[in-house]
């Protein structure tokens, strides 16, 4: 191979290859998924259009709009965890801490101040969650593996205990009612008590959060994180101070989880200690795993899947023995999780990839036969 060929190789290389949209951690399949890049842009654009049109299409179905708002909030939450779990190899089991800090920081701020501004509440929530992630992350990343997992869990449970007991500030076990704040954008007042309006605000912030995560993982910084996930020892042997990168990832993930928390508290109009409880950390981890960790879209699909499957199961009337299935959602979720972990460890995205490869191979075979 000549030098020119080599440099052509590079131009067509990872920077500009047709697969540059492939954000998966599973690089082994590259470059074997033709046309996936354009397909992703197309389907992504369509998905956002459909989501934007949903309130108009559903015609006053406030329940549906509220459910979808909640799904988008959890999708954002799952995206933030995936930066740690999927891209940096940090298994945090206390990510609800930063979601909950967003909830309580914005909640307490709004409860204390009359006519609080949405944007200011957002800023407070994100900054508090980010600063907490800096402090707690600084301590947590000194450990690894199971110790990291337990330490992150311990920190989140401490915050839960504080929120649960500190009646004066957080309302304790009763929770804290939070009025909808005011949002004025470019001199135009948006009524956040209208579910559709709140939905649009959530959708906009979700899209921004998604694009932020996408930029992070495609940047040199994101490549560094993947290197740490793959082989931290070798990163040190290349001159990387890996701890600082892990901390930076922890802060970005914490701040984005805080953003999701702020959206959640203004959506519910209520701050609850349950937002900080470890089951919330578990739920978002299940979303990441079912969707496909280490892939950009996986956590989003996972959040949609978990929430809508829950809705579906809870609407079912049939019984299994003396069980009413509608009351056994967690049992069903557990069974689904077992099946995925055993047979589809790359989650929904992994299944999608296999189908895409199968489909495009069939097409190319048929094309050759003609």
């Amino acid at each position: 191979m000549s030098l020119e060929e080599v440099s052509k190789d590079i131009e067509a290389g990872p920077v500009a290859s047709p697969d540059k949209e492939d954000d998966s951690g599973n690089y082994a399949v590259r470059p074997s998924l033709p046309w996936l890049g354009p397909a992703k842009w197309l389907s992504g654009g369509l998905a956002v259009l459909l989501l934007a049109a949903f309130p108009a299409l559903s015609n006053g179905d406030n329940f549906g709009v509220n459910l979808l708002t909640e799904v988008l909030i959890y999708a954002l939450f799952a995206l933030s965890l995936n930066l740690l779990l999927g891209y940096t190899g940090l298994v945090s089991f206390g990510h609800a801490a930063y979601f909950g800090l967003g909830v309580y920081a914005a909640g307490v701020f709004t409860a204390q101040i009359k006519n609080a501004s949405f944007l200011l509440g957002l800023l407070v929530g994100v900054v508090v969650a980010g600063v907490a992630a800096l402090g707690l992350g600084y301590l947590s990343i000194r450990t690894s593996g199971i110790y990291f997992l337990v330490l992150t869990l311990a920190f989140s449970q401490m915050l839960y205990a504080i929120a649960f007991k500190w009646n004066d500030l957080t309302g304790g076990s009763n929770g804290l009612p939070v009025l909808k704040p005011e949002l004025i954008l470019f001199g135009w007042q948006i009524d956040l008590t209208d579910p559709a309006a709140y939905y649009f605000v959530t959708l906009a912030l979700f899209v921004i959060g998604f694009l932020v995560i996408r930029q992070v993982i495609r940047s040199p910084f994101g490549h560094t994180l993947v290197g740490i996930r793959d082989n931290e020892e070798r990163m040190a042997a290349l001159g990387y101070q890996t701890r600082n990168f892990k901390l930076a990832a922890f802060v970005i993930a914490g701040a984005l989880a805080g953003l999701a928390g702020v959206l959640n508290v203004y959506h519910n109009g209520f701050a609850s200690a349950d937002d900080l409880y470890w089951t919330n950390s578990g739920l978002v981890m299940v979303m990441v795993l079912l969707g496909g960790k280490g892939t950009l879209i996986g956590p989003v699909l996972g959040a949609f899947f978990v929430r809508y499957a829950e809705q579906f199961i809870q609407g079912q009337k049939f019984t299994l023995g003396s069980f009413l299935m509608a009351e056994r959602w967690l049992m069903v979720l557990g069974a689904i999780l077992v099946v995925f972990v055993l047979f589809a460890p790359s989650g929904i995205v992994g299944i999608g990839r296999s189908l895409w490869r199968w489909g495009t191979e069939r097409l190319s075979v048929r094309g050759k036969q003609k």
Partner: protein
Amino acid sequence: MTTPFSGEALRVTDLQKTFGELKAVGGVSLSVARSERRAVIGPNGAGKTTFFNLISGALKPTAGTIEFEGHNVTGLPDWKRVRRGLSRTFQRNNLFTSLTTFENVRLAVQRQHSLSYNLWSAGKARRQLNERVEQVLIQVGLARRSQTVVASLSYGEQRQLEIALALATEPSILLLDEPTAGMSVAETGRMIDLIKQLPPSLTLLLVEHDMEVVFSIADRITVLHLGQVLTEGTAQAIRADERVRQVYFGD
């Protein structure tokens, strides 16, 4: 900074490492000149690997000092030594197996170009980064494998990538930990050629079992035995040394 720079790449003084009761390295001193090709050999259990890890910073010595180009680096962690120009390869391939060859080397180069914290990589910086990655791949003969996922490279190619990663950090001294370990005869020959083609200004410190490799690369050889320096000399002198024969082959 204890001694002024004196054309020495590396000076090790009375280096010791004990694990519990075991004295793995028991007071080793040596000096490697700039652009020298030095091999450290010794029978199993001689303390070669421990010695190597002390130099690279993977282990902290119990006593003694390590000076690199006149600077005391004994207390520096491994990643800081790399930034000073002291880079290593691993005896067992230690790569980013889910990434492509290109992406492996890019990790080393982007750190060298101080891009690792960038959340945005603009055109020019990105072009320079990619060009440098390609240079390194050509240097070690892996340009054809640029887009191959490392897990699907042959064993020999993975060994070449080991060297590429270390070279991409632009070291002034390169520590090679058994570069031909586990290789076939043909692959070993290619690896020797590759090492011989490294820039003459680069200082090499090589730990190796294969005597053919040692004699074809090294200017000087240090023989370790039971954690101490048995002798040191040119390849010819070592080949002729009766004590070296004894520790390797018994009486």
